[in-house]
């Protein structure tokens, strides 16, 4: 098992990073009925860990017994029936799924599953009808329609089930949903906190940590705890005992993007653009999400860029990121951004150096 999973806190009490949030949630669950919840925060901040611990707090250890299902939902949409395939993870008391995987058919998923859950409610020990918990990931990636129908179902079935929504940014979740949920913001852990977690893991694993090594990992992790633990484990595999100036292996795709960026800086021509396209294709084949590619590419380009161009380049990156969301084929838009950058940069070079 990876360390990320091995040292994931199982209960609300074990949680160290967001201790205050965890304690509040515990009180909430113990004292009264839990409202709908919306967790939001950057990736690697511990949203999922909190949610899992919360569910465990609600239902006890039975929540750990989960099964993964690849289920096909038959949805009757007016004139025709649609088959939607989706992976769900469920225990007796909760169901977790990522509705945005269903693409533009996500709205059916939300309705259908909630209806189904409402049909078979679990009965608790006192013979009282309990409620199920539905965990929805990536709510911010849901379409407008889906969010709208989610709102309706939330109202209609609120006595049957509780929703726990997870997303990175609450700004893409409609007001209507936000106001119906208790919003919980989960900040990215500070470097200090990451450092502590790494030290804790090191102690448990019986490792010698040279001074400054853990803080370097924490620094490089970009405030993502998952990232930090993963790279910590990789370092352990690469070289042990640790040396204080040991290189922390970067993610291969990030290195690849760095390479692309330096190629873009070196030459600006249609031919080079074509080569860049080939490399972008390779990233896409390996399932790196295009938004992340664009973001990272911008980050790498900005590092080497003259200050006066930064504003313009950022503007165009934002522009093409938007177009990419509107469009269908990401490569068209990433490439347009690269071409625009090349064009700007070349003009700049000519005007400065003649």
């Amino acid at each position, binding site marked *: 098992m990876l360390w990320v999973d091995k040292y994931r806190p199982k209960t609300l009490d074990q949680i160290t990073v967001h201790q205050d949030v965890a304690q509040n949630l515990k009180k909430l669950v113990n004292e009264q009925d839990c409202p709908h919840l919306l967790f939001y925060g950057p*990736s690697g901040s511990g949203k999922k860990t909190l949610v899992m611990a919360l569910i465990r707090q609600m239902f006890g250890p039975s929540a750990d017994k989960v099964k993964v299902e690849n289920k096909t939902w038959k949805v009757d949409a007016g004139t025709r029936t649609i088959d939607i395939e989706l992976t769900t993870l469920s225990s007796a008391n909760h169901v977790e799924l990522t509705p945005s995987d269903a693409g533009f058919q996500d709205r059916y998923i939300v309705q259908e599953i909630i209806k189904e859950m409402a049909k078979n409610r679990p009965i608790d020990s006192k013979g009282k009808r309990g409620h199920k918990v539905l965990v929805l990931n990536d709510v911010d990636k849901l379409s407008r329609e889906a969010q709208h129908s989610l709102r309706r179902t939330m109202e209609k079935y609120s006595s049957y089930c509780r929703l726990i929504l997870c997303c990175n940014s609450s700004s893409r979740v409609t007001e209507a949903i936000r106001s119906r949920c208790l919003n919980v913001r989960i900040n990215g852990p500070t470097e200090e906190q990451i450092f502590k977690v790494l030290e804790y893991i090191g102690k448990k694993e019986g490792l010698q940590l040279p001074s400054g090594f853990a803080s370097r990992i924490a620094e490089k992790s970009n405030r993502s705890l998952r990232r930090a633990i993963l790279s910590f484990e990789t370092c352990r595999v690469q070289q042990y005992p640790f040396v204080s100036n040991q290189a922390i292996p970067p993610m291969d795709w990030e290195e690849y993007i760095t390479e692309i960026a330096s190629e873009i800086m070196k030459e600006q021509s*249609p031919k080079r653009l074509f080569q860049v396209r080939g490399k972008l*294709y390779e990233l896409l084949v390996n399932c790196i999400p295009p938004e992340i590619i664009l973001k990272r590419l911008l980050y790498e380009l900005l590092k080497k860029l003259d200050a006066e161009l930064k504003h313009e380049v950022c503007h165009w990156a934002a522009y093409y990121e938007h177009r990419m969301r509107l469009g269908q084929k990401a490569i068209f838009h990433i490439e347009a951004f690269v071409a625009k950058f090349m064009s700007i940069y070349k003009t700049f070079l000519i005007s400065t150096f003649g």
Partner: protein
Amino acid sequence: MTKKENNPGLLSSDEEYCGGRSSSSKRRYRKTKSQSPLPRKSTRQAKKARLLGSRSCLQKDSRNVDEFNSFCEDFDQVFSTFKVSAGSGSVCRNELWIDKYRPHSLEELAVQKKKVDEVKVWFEDRLRTPMDANGSNVILITGPAGVGKSATVHVIASHLGARLCEWDTPTPVIWREHLHNLTAGIQYTSKLDEFESFIGRMRKYGVIPSCFSIDSKQPVILLIDDLPLTNGKAALRRLQSCLHLYVQSTQVPTAIVITDCAKAETTDFTVQYLEEIQLCLENAGACKVAFNPITNNSIKKTISRICSCEQYDLAVEQIDAIAKSSGGDVRHAIMSLQLFCLKPSQICSSSSSAQESLKDEEMPHTLVDDRFSFQFGRDETLSLFHALGKFLHNKRHSVNELVLDSEFSVQESLLRRPLNMDPPEKVLCQAHGQARPIADFLHENVLDFMNEEAIDDAWVVASYLGDADTLLSSYDGMLARHNDAENILHLAAASVAVRGVLFGNSHPLSSRWHAIRRPKLWQIEGSSLSNKKMVKQRFVPYGGISLAHFSVVATEYVPALKWLGNSVSEDHEKLWALTEENTGFDMVISGDQESHTSEEEIEDW
């Protein structure tokens, strides 16, 4: 040179016609018929026979083809005399030339010699050692319409002295007919069912020698001409499995003829079906021979042969034009020839009967203009590659032809010289270009056609292509497929993509040879999708208690596991296998680049 043996059908309809008109002709006709030893059955009869199970299929004695033809001519004479006596025959004309001049010998075939030999050798092999276990007994012949696929099989069969049994695709039952049948108590069977049971019988019992066969020792060739059209995946699978079984177990040498359409131009589902079936047949072990469109020269040869037989004198350039307009389709060329010859026939035909019948025809009067007009050619279509070439090469008039519009002035930098082609939308229309593939092709290839220095142009083009993509996706899946709004959207997107490329590429390279590649994007999308599936299956439930975000898995878990791979714990083993596949895939991709470039060479127009 026709695809099917049309004579029986033609004659039988004539028979009905004549029967209705005059009893004298009927009598005469009957007489001829009774003299002929030829077994003739209409397809309909054959179908009934099949249903009853008494006879396996329509049978024709290939050796008798010549006799048959002479009989036809015989009949024609009789018939035309009848027409003269009746005085008003405007519908019944001489036989169609495509039937009259169907090839009877290998020499007359316009098909490429090599292909014919290939098929011939194959049949010879099978007929010599019919019980041979090596390889299957099925040959698959594909090619565009009218290149003589069926004719080749017919001619070879008669050349080898084999009896040809034929499955023709049955005509669909129309609704009224079905209702009529219902009252008459005839059960409806689907065409696929009919075909399946036919194939099943052929597989089990082979060809049952029927009463018509003169010599039961004579070898038999089965010709399956056009498979039944399937609708839906389930039907397709049924057809595939039935064919697969047949290919593997049949004892009768069989030719399956499939007419294929151009792949790149249509995204029709039927095309995909046909391709799948072809693939399935090949997998089952069928030998495949693909016929190409017939070259202009052999079409010209065929036309001149017919001209000399009919004693028409056509100019070389007229023959040339007919051959060119046919697009490699001999049947079409001969039909155009016959139509074209209607006009000269007024002058040079000597037969009085022909003249008389022509008087009543209205067709020639519409062809009065002296100029060699071309109303009968196949619709001029451009291939997708031709159209793409036009757009990518971006040919424009030279500067001095530029007409400056004074009242509508544009900035210098936005000025472009006029296009040296039809309006792009028209070209698109001719090429039947669909917006999505057009945009993908342009995106893949446009950078090759740009000046080394012109990165600004590259940006403009990329930006327009992005616009086209946005247009294409805006209502994707929300509207019904054939919605007008979506159609317009697609047209607009195609127009934006094409015009964007034409406008943006303001410094095109001087024309030279270029390869047009198939969009690599399609391949990328396919493999990224399958990778995604794989990653999802193996990773997402990973950790056991929670679904991980997919992007997180792809960007963090996978790379980390690549590093961790060296210390494979049993738990990671499968994950490592996956990452290995991934890296292997990278190499495959980069290796593929070279092989794809030479796929389609196009000339500079």
